């Protein structure tokens, strides 16, 4: 049986013709140091619903402490299937949410690894199982891609923005042009991060602003109260975006202020691009 189709199938290319742009909400990743305010920032996104990976219940603590208003969230994701089910429910059921926040992506990655370890390695994590030549991380990529596809579908079918929060880690960078140095990177396995990096529209890094005073004896760091979101790649951290954002966005003194500043920067970038 042969199936012929018309010359241009609108369902596919409607969303991918660059002269108009896809018109879909963004896929944003924010990584940052502990207690920088990632969750408070994301909780102010419009029509937000938050999914918390097991152990990442900072949102509930913030709500209890009246630092955040009551915010819709799923029950703590205990296993990998919980994550996929939540995303599928958002895709298929009636609701008015506009933004899904994943808190945190590295926590979800851990659930993915647990799922793969149980399925393919009989729950053996060591050298005779998941960690054998780091194979488990490689095998998990197929499942990780499944998550990204599910998020793509949610974004395309329900026009929902995706915000994923990630903890940062400091990792050495082997510099071929000079001395090696340390960088802030999302705390995920390098291969899963590489896949996710390619998928995202914006990778943001949040940190405290610190000034280094070097009086010739011993360098000292001062400050540490001012918080910023950095949007472009730097030797010291991984970031980057396709949204035309300024290099640095002030996070102010609250999650709301941080979000408002971010949205202003997005709107400004859109105006500037027109």
């Amino acid at each position, binding site marked *: 049986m042969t*199936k012929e189709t018309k010359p241009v199938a609108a369902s596919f290319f409607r969303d991918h013709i660059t002269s108009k742009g896809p018109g879909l909400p963004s896929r944003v990743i924010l990584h940052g140091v502990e207690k920088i305010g990632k969750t408070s920032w994301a909780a102010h996104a419009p029509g937000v619903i938050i999914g918390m990976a097991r152990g990442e219940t900072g949102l509930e603590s913030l709500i209890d402490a009246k630092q955040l208003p009551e915010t819709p969230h799923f029950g703590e994701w205990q296993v990998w299937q919980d994550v996929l089910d939540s995303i599928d429910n958002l895709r298929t059921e009636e609701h008015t949410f506009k933004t899904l926040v994943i808190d945190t992506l590295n926590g979800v990655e851990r659930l993915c690894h647990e799922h793969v370890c149980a399925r*393919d390695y009989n729950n053996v994590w060591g050298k005779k199982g998941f960690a054998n030549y780091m194979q488990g991380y490689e095998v998990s990529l197929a499942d990780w891609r499944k998550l990204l596809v599910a998020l793509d579908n949610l974004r395309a079918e329900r026009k929902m923005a995706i915000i994923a929060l990630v903890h940062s880690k400091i990792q050495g960078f082997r510099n071929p042009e000079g001395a090696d140095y340390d960088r802030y990177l999302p705390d995920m396995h390098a291969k899963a991060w590489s896949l996710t990096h390619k*998928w995202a529209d914006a990778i943001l890094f949040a940190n405290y602003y610190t000034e280094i005073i070097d009086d010739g004896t011993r360098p000292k760091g001062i400050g540490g109260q001012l918080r910023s979101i950095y949007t472009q790649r730097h030797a010291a951290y991984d970031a980057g975006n396709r949204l035309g954002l300024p290099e640095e966005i002030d996070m102010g003194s609250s999650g709301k202020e941080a979000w408002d500043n971010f949205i202003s920067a997005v709107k400004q970038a859109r105006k500037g691009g027109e």
Partner: protein
Amino acid sequence: MSLDKSLRVIDAAMRGVEDEAQLVIGTKCRALMTCYDRRWRFDKWSAKSLEETVHLPIVNPATGRTSRTWTQAGKHDGVISGYGRRLLLEHKTCSEDIEDPAATYWRRLDIDSQVSQYVLQHWQAGGKLDGTLYDVIRKPASRPKKITAAVLTSIHATNEYYGQKVSEETKSDLAEFGPRENQELYFHRLCQDMVDRSNRYFQRKVIHRTDGEVVEFASELWDLGQTIADANRDGRHYRNSAACLTYGSPCEYLGVCSGHDTLESDKWERASRVHAELSDDFGGNVLTNSRAKCFQLCRRKHHYRYGLGIRRRDEEGTEALYFGSLMHQSLEAWWSAYLEGTENDKRDEAGGGQLLP
């Protein structure tokens, strides 16, 4: 019923066959389909379509422009639904390790162009799927073997071999031809091995592509069409000597490329259809996955095969091709029992087979 259907296909292919090698292939296929059915019959998949050939335009995703030179086509094994998902179905037979989840067989699927192209084709046709079910069967490497005296005694005493009844015909074979497995005994041994080591022979995995990856592939397909058109325009089809012995045997055009033969010799003929795998002839400017891979492997080979449409007259099917083709037909017959909208669309509700992860 699904098993009966697939076994009928094998029986029909084996009717009148006397060649030992072909009979062994037939027995392997029978054993594989018997154990495939045992492994998967309780899965709750139903087939939406089977063996459908699609023919679509090639569109540049950066501009939305449709190619005036090229179209694309492919024959999809099927589209299936179940567990709230709609998947593309791809059957594969192989000789590689599929049991190890980190095996290279699975790792290379991350960028496999056939998966990408078929997903693109469905998306382009308006039916975005949830993934591709890779339904893989590993070919057994064993062959019929001699039987020890002790086993022979046991067969005569119990009338059984690997727990299965042995026919009178086989017993007379053993008396006439000596202690060696005939097709029946070999079948029993294969089945026992496939039941004992089911994961070695049968695997199913769902392969996913993100939207970005599909769009990236669409760009590559567009670029490939442009590159082939440029090569045709300039009449330049350079050779890739690294590809002359790919897949463990010499390229069929090696003699021509190395000057030991010419296309004018009586060994060659013009094929009536260059895309024999498709059910329709869509003309010369169709990019199938096979064609794209051929061009990427060796431009000269692509020119001979798809540009000039030249094939060897005496091309003989290899054992692997024969096995693959027979298994493919058997699998199609097996799945046809689960085709929606037919009288066959019923399945045994008893038992609890393996569910996909």
